[in-house]
């Protein structure tokens, strides 16, 4: 499954890069969500994928029996998902306020920090 996941990751990355290069800031946000997914899958896959054996210690035992899913990348991905969500929420607030102020979602037009006048001087 790792090989197939790698291809899925590639597809997600390509799509997110393409969306983040778009002029529309909402597309950029779509790209951010996809990139977050691609990153999480990458961490998950690089810890190797085990089918159907969650990382649990059965009652009465001191350690899991047999091979179980790798717990470490799962913990990392859990953290990453939440942080990715925080990032998206903030970026979304930024985009929303940006739109309210500049009346545009075109990043070529949204130039609060580096106004166009400077470049024509």
């Amino acid at each position, binding site marked *: *499954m*790792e*090989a197939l*996941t*790698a*291809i*899925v990751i*590639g*597809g997600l990355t*390509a*799509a997110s*890069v393409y*969306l*983040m*290069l*778009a*002029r*529309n800031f*909402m*597309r950029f946000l*779509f790209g951010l969500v*996809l990139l977050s*997914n691609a990153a*999480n*899958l990458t961490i*998950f*896959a*690089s810890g190797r*994928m085990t089918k*159907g054996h969650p*990382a649990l*210690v059965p009652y009465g035992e*001191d350690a*899991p029996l047999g091979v*179980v*899913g790798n*717990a*470490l990348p*799962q*913990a990392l*991905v*859990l*953290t990453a*998902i*939440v942080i990715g*969500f925080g*990032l*998206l*929420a*903030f970026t*979304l607030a*930024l*985009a*929303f306020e940006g739109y309210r102020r500049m009346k545009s979602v075109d*990043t070529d037009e949204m130039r609060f*920090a*580096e*106004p166009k006048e*400077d*470049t024509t001087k």
Partner: protein
Amino acid sequence: MADNSDPNAPWKTLSGLGTSGLTALLFLYFLQFLAPVAAGEPVRFVWDWIPSLDVSLSFYIDGLSLMFALLITGIGAMVMLYAAKYLAGHHHYDRFALYLFSFMLSMLGLVLADNLIALFVFWELTTFTSYLLIGFLHLDPKSRRNALQALLLTATGGLAMLAGFILIGITQGTFELSELNAAGSLADQPFYLLILILVLAGAFTKSAQVPFHFWLPNAMAAPTPVSAYLHSATMVKAGVYLLARMHPSLSGSDVWVWTLSIFGAVTAVFASFMALRQTDLKQTLAYTTLMALGTLTMFLAGSTGYAITAAMTFLLVHSLYKAGLFLMIGVVDHGTGTRDANVLGGLKASMPITAAAAAAAGLAMAGIPPFLGFIAKEVAYAGALEMHLWLFVVPMSLIAFALMFAVAGIVAYKPFYGPQGQLPREPHEGPWPMLLGPVVLGVLGLLFGLLPGISAYYLIEPAVAAVMGEPDTGGRVKLWAGFNLPLLLSLITFGLGFLLYQRHLALRERLAQIEARAADLDAGWDRLLDHFVTYTKAQTRLIQTGVLRQYMFATFAVFAATVLVTLIARDVGGIALQFAGLSFMEWGVALLIVAGTVLVVLTSSRIVGLVALGVVGIGVALIFIMFSAPDVAITQLLVELLVVVLLAMAFLKMPNLDPSGSQSHSFPNAVLAVTVGVLTTIVVLLVVDQPFDRRLTDFFEAASWTEAFGRNIVNVILVDFRTLDTFGEIAVVAVAALGAFALLKGFARARDTKGGEK
């Protein structure tokens, strides 16, 4: 211009007397090294600093560094006392004391450092602290500009010097000066020429050799105590110190001899003429400092005992009389309200102590026996006669010393004798804290001359030995060396100097005419800076377009290029794709994600895009469920739900994806996106292809129940083993929430209070 307006302001402040006292204590501390160092036993202290880079904080006290350390702390203590009175009542005096003390410490570190990198760090610290000192009167734009000029010029030289030091470290395998100097000359090593050029760039900018000289007279914008300190014994001597310090390693080649002789001689002669041309006495002294630096550089070109002794003796005597004269000018300025050579005269009656101190310093500067200045001049002529380029060096020295004689008359004689001019203020004698320095320094100049044996044994000969790399027993420092060629040259100097002094007013006019026609390097500097600003603006326009897409494109392109180059350089072979044994469900989930992805990219509807994002998210959650990660899957589903809800709420109030109907698709973007995607796939495949390291996983599996008493290993990691990560994660979410709240609520309120504009 005296900066203190209130002569009755309290001056016995903690910052003034404290720094001065501490510096005096340091002076006493260094005195104890005189005897061992004179006996040929240098002292070395070492602390590890960055052992991995072979950089240590090592200090080395030999004759050369000890002489500098004593001058720095001794003159420093007097200058700080002087400044406490000179700037008493100034509202930024505490700041000034801090700058001056930091500068003193940096300078001390510079002359004591044995490690080239440590030396560089202290070197730049002196640059920064002197920047603050020169620009102390920061309300004056000229002061700011001159400080910046000194900073840029000397820091650029310093960076070149750092490159030279690193080259030395790489080729010689050590950064320790004591080891380098013990190993002898680098003249036949590879890269010698490059090293020499880079190090000289640092030394020449710091010590203001022509054509980098123009910052030094400009630096006179600083208050007088700063000039007295920076331009007598310290800052500008750092370059000379470096030349002397590295003399054993870097000399021994024709390039060294020629470069130092020519730069030094040109600087010395040019500066002495310029000194004659000035009417502001402080500017006159600034140019004589340049002259001294040139002379020192010129004598360091030589390698014979007399040449080095000349450099070291002159260095000592110049530090003493120049600091004294600068301080004296400050007293005169303070007492009369002017520094103009044309106005000042006849102050002897009203300022007797100042006049006496000035006379002592002036006699030392003119080289009159029995002052140490006389000995310095004798040794200098003896050294000049011994040098390879004596035909060049002797006449240049003669001109410079004769001009210096004349300038000594202008600075130390003329203001105090003859008729009194029209002064802005009724002249009065300075207060004792300001007189102590000039008097002590003047007396020392006389004492050292009267007791040449002692000054030679404790100060000059150990320094000469350090520069030459071998013990010095020359006994060259004598008050009476018999009738010889140097004495004859001395007499010619006096005669010539006297003539020049007699005619200096006429000469000054001629010089002013010549100066008006000559190229002005100072203005050239301003033009250079203007061009630089124009260039950087053009460059910024080219690189920083202000268009987000272009920044993103550049970022992803660099990412793709670096990964691609690494893959090619590592010569990665083929990768076998293992699809065997995959069930229908696995193919199905993969297809679901890919379909959702394609839809997100292609759609021009907000709602379709959101739904497609949801499909991708659920597909990813399905992968987590199938492959033993139920906790992750639950989180993913919850977060995915929240994302879709949030986006939907926001998008309701935002325009459609392609509001103007224009498609925002582009072929180059697609090519870059596919490249990045393919490269990511390859990297993930390569990662998975590596042997798997289970050590951490094994630890968690074994310790989860036995140590943390939890059966869900993932949860145990999150809340026990890696709690800090989880805490950080919560903090990130909290900060994001606060930020979003501030953005949405805060700005809305600000807008409302402004009357609903925009």
